[in-house]
């Protein structure tokens, strides 16, 4: 029989009791989701890793102040959100459009990995769609991008997104709606609704 996976709450209780394994469990569970969100927000893999690392350290050091009536996931994402927003605010005066920040598309893809259950062929084509969606996402304002990622990639409910971002729930809904519409507009403008948009392209090696 498969052993039942421990809940976040169990791991938090064990971590507070001093279990290093529980800290590792929480870290293993959330390192990729948190890093993915931060990477897509700052679009610089090395910086994203520093910010995510800082967020985890902060969360683990302050685990005693975590209100166990709330969800650990929302709390952790809130800390990551704060670190990311602080960084984006500090960078604001010399801000360049996010699509032009230090990471090239290829650098981004080096740290982003498709879900493992997919076949290599399916992974390659998913990557094509994902890369287009990522490109369009990078052109959205950070607040829209973040709510879209929290809602559709991390699967958070509206009230959880409100907790993470510190926005009223009505604003979360408005931002999600506007973000979706803008993303759709960008993808349509990129010609992705045309049937030939995902036709197989010759790989560089074959073309040579």
């Amino acid at each position: 029989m498969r052993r039942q996976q421990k809940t976040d709450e169990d791991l938090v209780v064990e971590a507070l009791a001093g279990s290093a394994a529980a800290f590792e469990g929480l870290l293993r569970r959330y390192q990729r989701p948190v890093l993915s969100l931060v990477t897509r927000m700052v679009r610089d893999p090395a910086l994203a890793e520093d910010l995510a690392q800082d967020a985890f350290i902060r969360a683990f050091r302050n685990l005693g102040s975590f209100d166990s009536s709330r969800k650990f996931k929302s709390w952790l994402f809130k800390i990551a959100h704060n670190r990311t927003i602080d960084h984006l605010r500090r960078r604001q005066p010399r801000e360049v459009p996010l699509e032009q920040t230090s990471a090239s598309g290829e650098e981004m893809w080096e740290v982003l990995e498709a879900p493992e259950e997919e076949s290599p062929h399916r992974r390659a084509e998913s990557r094509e769609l994902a890369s287009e969606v990522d490109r369009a996402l990078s052109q959205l304002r950070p607040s829209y991008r973040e709510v879209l990622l929290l809602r559709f990639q991390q699967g958070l409910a509206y009230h959880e997104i409100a907790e993470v971002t510190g926005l009223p729930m009505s604003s979360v809904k408005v931002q999600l709606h506007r973000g979706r519409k803008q993303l759709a507009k960008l993808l349509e403008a990129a010609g992705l609704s045309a049937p030939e948009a995902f036709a197989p392209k010759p790989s560089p090696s074959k073309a040579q």
Partner: protein
Amino acid sequence: MKPDHSKDHEMLTSWLAAERAGDDAVAEERLGQIFQGLPLAVPSEAFAARVLAGAGVARRGAARAADLGRQLRPAVAFGLLSAGLASAFLLPLVARLLAEVDPGSTLAAFAGLFAWLTRGSVVVIEVGAALAGYVRMLWLVLTAPPILSTLLVTAAVSTLLIRWLLELLSFHRSASDDRIFYI
């Protein structure tokens, strides 16, 4: 065979159609499917170790304790074996020594030891009483209002300074960091 890339196209067009039709529920569902296909970031190998070290979590504390237990096992076994062998040789020797001991002189030795301990206890009690007197005097001085308030203010200022220094050394603060304590 129909090429696989149609699946992505279908997913995308179905979402875009739902957006155009204003069907929020379907649009959310389709966009959710698309986002589920977005790749997740892979942290570097040292990421976990850096986080755990930064958070002051002992790395694999339980495993390390188990390792230590395994390393101690042969030492414990060796100790028990040595004690067994030694007792096999020592017991006859001890028995022979006991047979040669005179009960009268042993009793006298114990009586001498008891008298020495009693004298020692009296000295300890005298020293304790003197110390208690000093402590009482010190307490009276420390609880005098001007001295007590000075001490409290000094302690509070020192605590705040140490906290500030620790914060300064560990992280750079920012306004939004404070919010994590209120959720």
